[in-house]
């Protein structure tokens, strides 16, 4: 079995998450070759063939051109699986490859099953599906963090590749993340509000618990999108990554993008009215209650 792994490079750097790709291949028991649009000074530390295109000429985000590079490499390598990370780079490019080859794509894989199917999440993380490609070959995107990264080691055999530009898309540039007023990464206690808090007027109730515990206020994305709490309080893949001693999740379902930002917390308490909420999978304590009843009562007791 053979996999073609598609590495990631952004703002002049090889992304660390690239090592999760060989981690997946190892679990699959497959041989690997890698394609990277990157730079010679930033080679992944691994063995095997590395098809390297120059990001300076091929662009960091140029889906039409990167598609060409990948399709040409597929011709040379004839892989069973073409593997991406399920990231802003991967989920953008993977369907283009699957459609061009007219093969299945299996998105955000978290496990490999014995029957040749792959396990993926469903219903915002509440359920799971096993999905099987109809033909042998498939495009796969793996969930960030789902497979242990391979230990860096070895030296790749570099084959330089390139492709002509073209297409109707032009990359203008990057915009930095919004400036942070608070650095949640340093907080020892974080109490986060999710959509289950109900409305903006209820946020002070969550903030009061954060204060009583001597911590900071965090938030899930919908609460930030609705402008109940400022963006620099957002925890998750598109917010901050935190690892406090105590994380209290109030009315947060536990979507993977939120978990990615807080699962390394030492101790996690979740308050949710839904016993099946996926946050329960990683919480040390799941309190099944209405957050607007439980949180004020807890705060009052602590304040005493």
């Amino acid at each position, binding site marked *: 079995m053979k996999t073609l792994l598609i590495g990631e490079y952004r703002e002049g750097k090889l992304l660390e998450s690239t090592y999760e790709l060989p981690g997946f291949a190892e679990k699959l028991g497959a041989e690997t070759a890698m394609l990277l649009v990157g730079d010679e000074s930033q080679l992944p530390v691994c063995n095997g063939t590395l098809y390297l295109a120059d990001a300076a000429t091929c662009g960091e985000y140029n*889906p039409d051109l990167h598609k060409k590079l990948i399709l040409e490499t597929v011709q040379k390598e004839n892989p069973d699986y073409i593997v991406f990370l*399920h*990231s*802003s780079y991967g*989920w*953008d490019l993977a*369907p*283009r490859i*699957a*459609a061009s080859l*007219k093969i*299945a794509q*299996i*998105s*955000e894989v978290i496990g490999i099953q014995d*029957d040749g*199917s792959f396990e993926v*999440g*469903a*219903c*915002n993380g*509440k*359920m*799971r*599906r*096993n*999905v099987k*490609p*109809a*033909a042998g070959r*498939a495009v796969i995107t793996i969930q960030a963090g789902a497979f242990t990264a391979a230990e860096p080691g070895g030296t790749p055999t570099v084959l330089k590749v390139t492709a002509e530009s073209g297409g*109707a*898309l032009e990359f*203008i*540039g*990057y*915009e930095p*993340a*919004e400036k942070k007023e608070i650095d949640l990464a340093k907080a020892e206690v974080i109490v986060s509000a999710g959509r289950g808090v109900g409305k903006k007027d209820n946020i002070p109730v969550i903030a009061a618990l954060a204060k009583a*515990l001597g911590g900071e206020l965090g938030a899930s*994305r919908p609460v930030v*999108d609705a402008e109940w709490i400022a963006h620099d309080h957002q925890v998750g*893949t598109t917010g901050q990554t935190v690892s406090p*001693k*105590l994380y209290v999740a109030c009315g947060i*379902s536990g979507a993977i993008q939120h978990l990615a930002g807080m699962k390394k917390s030492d*101790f996690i308490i979740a308050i949710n009215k839904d*016993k*099946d909420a996926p946050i*329960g999978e990683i*919480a*040390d304590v*799941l*309190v*099944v*209650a209405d957050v607007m009843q*439980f949180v004020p*009562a*807890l705060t009052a*007791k602590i304040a005493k």
Partner: protein
Amino acid sequence: MKLLVCIKQVPDLESRFKPDAAGVWYNETDLAFRMNEYDEYAVEQAVQLREKLGEGTELTVISIGPDRVVETIKKALAMGCDNAAHIQDPAASGKDPWQIASIIAAYSKDKGFEIIFTGMQSQDRGSAQVGVTIAEQLGFACTTTIVGFDYDNGAITAKRELEGGIKGVVKLKIPALVTCQLGLNTPRYPTLPNIMKAKRKEIVVIPVADILREEALAATVSFHPPAKKGGGIVLEGDVADLVEKVIAILKDKTAVLR
């Protein structure tokens, strides 16, 4: 100019899910359905563009599914879409992303759409494939996960959201397709007059068999709850009791309370 927005009806994600008889998708009994959250942003963006371009612009909304999806189509019409296509398919949940995209591409082929909006993914399936695959099949320029959108003079300027909150700014020539991310805009609530007006808007019904020519490329072989990792405790009951228990745990397991 002709615009298309693609929407999916999904169950309320706070529901309890049980596998169906075949064990490959959820049982629909007792589930309440609504518009996929990501698609609400797509509809809002499409309606805003339609309003900006004014006269001579036509915005169509399309949805594939059983008759229940008409409710969600009506919401999109009440938000400001001009007309709708309902691809009637009682077995839509069994179709893979390739087939769903093929249906929309086949519908769109001779319609002259210049911009297509979709959500970046659905909340129940989460494949994040349909939008990009439609663009591939139609030969449209495409970008994904947008949190900013502007259209001027034949070109879209979109802001893509990347990991850690960085954004990538991209310019696309039309015809183009964009997939919309949470927070792109503030989706409007339909007003009563607009709900009434939407009742008179046309919904074309097309049976899926008339339009689908593609076989599935992937199949779901099992739908199941996650394996319980265990470890955590679940506390239920009276609030005062729960508070006592949580205080005891905080004192015992963390250095936060002494």
